[in-house]
């Protein structure tokens, strides 16, 4: 039928709520004073590896990490 009620501009542009919310949160973290800023940025660091499975076998793993080697 007709489109839903007014969607927020970011959803109309193709962004999901999580992306939007993470963007806002990251901005706020970047604008903090020093000891708080590094604490906040450190807290959000991730380290994980992802592998896609095809036909019951894993393909090559991709490692995504914010922790320097």
């Amino acid at each position, binding site marked *: 039928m007709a489109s839903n009620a007014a969607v927020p501009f*970011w959803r109309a*542009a*193709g962004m999901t709520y999580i992306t*939007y919310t993470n963007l806002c949160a990251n901005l706020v973290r970047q*604008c903090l004073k020093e000891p708080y800023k590094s604490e906040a940025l450190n807290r959000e660091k991730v380290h994980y590896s992802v592998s896609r499975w095809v036909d019951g076998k894993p393909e090559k793993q991709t490692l995504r990490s914010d922790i320097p080697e």
Partner: protein
Amino acid sequence: MFRRVAVRLLSHLRPFSSSEVPTEPVADDLFMAAWRRIVPNLDPPRTPLAFMRPRPSTASAASTPSKLTINLVSHYSSALSNKQVDMVIVPATTGQMGILPGHVASISELKAGLLSIHEGDEVTKYFISSGFVFVHSNSVTDIIAIEAVPIEQVDPDSVQKYFKEFTQKLSAASTDLEKAEAQIGLDVLSTLHSSLSG
């Protein structure tokens, strides 16, 4: 013999005993009754319900509490927990919303903005990046924020710097997505800026 071993094993499982938690879990009657019927010789194990502190009951329309109980939480911390205050003003997407004791139950989405907590004569301000607020009918208010920082921790120079950067990004943006990102940035930063001064 095995029963004694089992009892000794169970008695080791008390690491999280705290004095506030009742030894007899209140709401788990069915489980307790079934346990006692089937295994009368062993102490019943503590279930998760025993560790949960009961929320204040959703009172009937009878009484309006005199104070608001607020919980300010984010995914990494519980900044305020069961704090009794007089009023909170939250930055809902529909504008600044004031919540007083006896407020109607509601759920609102929050946008980037200032959260002010009024208790007596003091006002505590937090900047919230985004989140939700749940007001329950017993005047318990849960504010869930992704980032909630006391306004004193915000650095005005960074705000100015990023504001300029995002204004440039907006003018240089080509796709809808880039424009949206730049616009979000500008919204958050301008709110940050006005919260710092106002």
